[in-house]
């Protein structure tokens, strides 16, 4: 079965994926899953669904995900304008473009985190990646970019989990290969600009140690196999490690897993987890467990899925490099991919375009600009002109290429400066004395 990290990115707003594995129980695209959506109290039900969103599958009939339905179904809350304004007031600056444009759009208990923060009570951030491949694309980076913003504006520490053990279990990689990929991915993550003074990156294979293992077992004692099956759709034919792994992913939500960082007055620190909304069922499990271990429930801030270059109907596939912009792409590659593969909502001919304007609903370049073009005024102007026909597809794509090139170039430059020693420093089990400084 495809793990919830099968899109090669744990907790990322990954592009909608077809199921990758040939597992017996998982359905192929088109069918809905047998062990489908877990209901809030943990029961599972066989439901005929129009859209399926869970940690290992994201698909919808007709291609378009209905996020309102999703939020209702999961029972999380929408991130509304007043919360965004609250962000701006508390942090003293403009909210991140992903917040303003609604890419991060749902949450659980975010108000509690903000209330506590205003009272002077801190929190820490927790995110991670399933290192299944060496090459990352922009969709993978998005949650890390957002997490970096959170780290900067709130000045709080961050732990990043690299689940090399998970990739070993689900992808059949060797232990050594998973470890290697974890370190390689760590370099790209570091290049996103995390502050070494308040960031701890760890890989499961090397960090497993008494504090976190004890928490894993405590969590394991709270969640039955039935619940795990409900959330992850496993069967008795699956290897046993897959049943155990969810506990490993839950453990970093509890500060005592990191006694070298959170001790003394920080031993009950609150946790905020930026993730993609398909991870929600998973963290429901973690939130259920938290009070039983006398911890705050981890709060979540959740994102939509990042559109593939080919648009809603496109299938993102690891073997199709033209479905996304990779961080290793050259400027020429970016230009080529956007021009040739980005799905356009513009009309077929220039005359028609001038007359009718573009369909902004399906236009992928505009969607990408929505997330990556920081200037609100310019974006508005582009949408108006493109929608009315004053602007042509080629022009919009050209602007997108500029914006993406800048981002990719910046990332590559930062990535080039990351050495093995840098990774060692980020992954060293060390106290972070100025983590709230």
């Amino acid at each position, binding site marked *: 079965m495809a793990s919830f990290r099968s899109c090669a990115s744990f907790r990322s707003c990954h592009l909608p994926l077809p199921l990758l594995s040939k597992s017996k129980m998982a359905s192929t695209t088109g069918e809905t899953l047998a062990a489908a959506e877990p209901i809030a109290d943990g029961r599972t039900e066989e439901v005929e669904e129009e859209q399926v969103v869970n940690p290992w599958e994201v698909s919808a009939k007709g291609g378009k995900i209905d996020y309102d339905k999703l939020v209702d179904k999961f029972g999380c809350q929408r991130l509304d304008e007043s919360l965004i304004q609250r962000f701006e*007031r508390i942090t*003293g600056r403009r909210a991140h473009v992903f917040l303003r444009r609604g890419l991060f759009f749902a949450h659980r208990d975010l108000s509690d985190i903000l209330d506590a923060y205003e009272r002077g009570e801190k929190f820490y951030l927790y995110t991670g990646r399933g290192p299944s491949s060496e090459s990352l694309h922009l969709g993978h980076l998005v949650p890390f970019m957002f997490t970096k913003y959170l780290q900067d504006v709130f000045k709080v520490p961050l732990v990043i989990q690299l689940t090399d053990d998970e990739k070993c279990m689900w992808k059949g990689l060797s232990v050594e290969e998973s470890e290697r990929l974890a370190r390689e991915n760590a370099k790209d993550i570091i290049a996103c600009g995390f*502050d070494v003074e308040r960031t701890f990156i760890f890989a499961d294979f090397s960090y497993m140690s008494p504090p976190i293992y004890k928490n894993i077992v405590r969590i394991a004692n709270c969640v039955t196999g039935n619940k795990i099956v409900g959330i992850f759709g496993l069967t008795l034919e699956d290897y046993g490690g897959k049943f155990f792994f969810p506990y490993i992913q839950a453990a970093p939500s509890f500060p005592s897993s990191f006694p070298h960082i959170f001790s003394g007055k920080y031993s009950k620190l609150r946790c905020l987890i930026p993730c993609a909304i398909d991870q929600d069922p998973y963290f429901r499990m973690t939130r259920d467990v938290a009070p039983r271990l006398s911890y705050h429930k981890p709060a979540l801030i959740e994102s939509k899925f990042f559109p593939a270059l080919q648009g809603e109907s496109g299938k993102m596939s690891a073997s199709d490099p033209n479905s996304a912009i990779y961080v290793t792409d050259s400027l020429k590659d970016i230009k080529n991919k956007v021009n040739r593969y980005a799905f356009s909502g513009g009309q077929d001919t220039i005359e028609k375009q001038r007359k009718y304007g573009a369909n902004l609903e399906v236009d992928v370049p505009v969607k990408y600009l929505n997330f990556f073009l920081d200037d609100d005024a310019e974006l508005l102007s582009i949408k108006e002109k493109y929608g009315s026909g004053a602007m042509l597809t080629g022009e919009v794509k050209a602007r997108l290429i500029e914006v993406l090139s800048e981002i990719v170039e910046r990332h590559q430059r930062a990535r080039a400066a990351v050495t093995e020693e840098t990774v060692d*420093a980020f992954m*060293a089990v060390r106290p972070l004395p*100025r983590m709230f400084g």
Partner: protein
Amino acid sequence: MAFTKDQLLARLQELKIEFLSCDHPAVMTVEEQAKYVGHLGGALSKNLFLKDKKHRLYIISALANTKVDLKILSQRLGLGKGGLRMAPEEALPEILHVALGSVTPFALINESARSVSLLLDKGFKSQRYCLFHPLTNEVTIALTPSDFDKFLLSIGREPAYVDLEDCPVVGKDNPPDLAYLVPAEALNLPGGADKVPPTSAPAQTNATLEQKTKQPTQKPKEPSKEQKQKSGKDKPQINADAVADSTNVEKFVEKVLEKVSNVFISELSKQSNAEDGNIKDHMLEGVKQRVSFDLLSMTMTLKNSVYTQGFHAGIESTLYPLANRKIVERK
């Protein structure tokens, strides 16, 4: 990011705080100010920007006719007899982001002023209106005391009203009654005269970063080849929080951009006439926007690389206990 008068007034409006505003020529004293705004029927304030021997900063905002005795206040704050002095002139633009003659509690809206302690004359509470400069001494605004409190709370400040004329005897049995108002951290004041030998990595990092502000931004080199230059002319840090300031990437980039823009503007002014002021500001804002992201990324890279070097040096030195006896024994 320094707040402007307009931004402050916009914030007051956001908070639904009503205020009266009066423009007038720049005034440097309360008497002058009274000529223009006395008719508003509010209480004029005199605002003192002070520092103590440990470089901690205070704003004392008092009614115009309240007697403020710095010697007594100094004792009440637990700073000894002559502990309070006027803050250095450079601290005004640097910390409060206001010009000479414009000291006002509203300056605390700036992040840079977060460690400045505010003492308010309790006499304000009984006034109908209180009058302050909204970050410039060419304007005076009047607002009710409760609205003023509302503003302070909105920037995370608990208003501290004090009987400024009270002169309790401070001694063994009478601890300084205002000691709770002394700020927790001191700020790196410009023109700091304390001479302390550079200690280790933190001071070095600061020195390196300070060096960078004097040069145009360059790509960070390979950390192992980077020379950590000793800077005789720069001010070494002794305070841990000042170290936090100096390792703050955003503050660093802000300073760099400010220095560059100031120089740029003055060079530009030499070429064209003063009327292009707005265009220049606009252009500068545009330049800053475009260059910020890259600068921030590069500076963070530098910081992480420098930390990595220090970290590994630390590890390596513990492998040589004989040569580094002190380090091992200290553990």
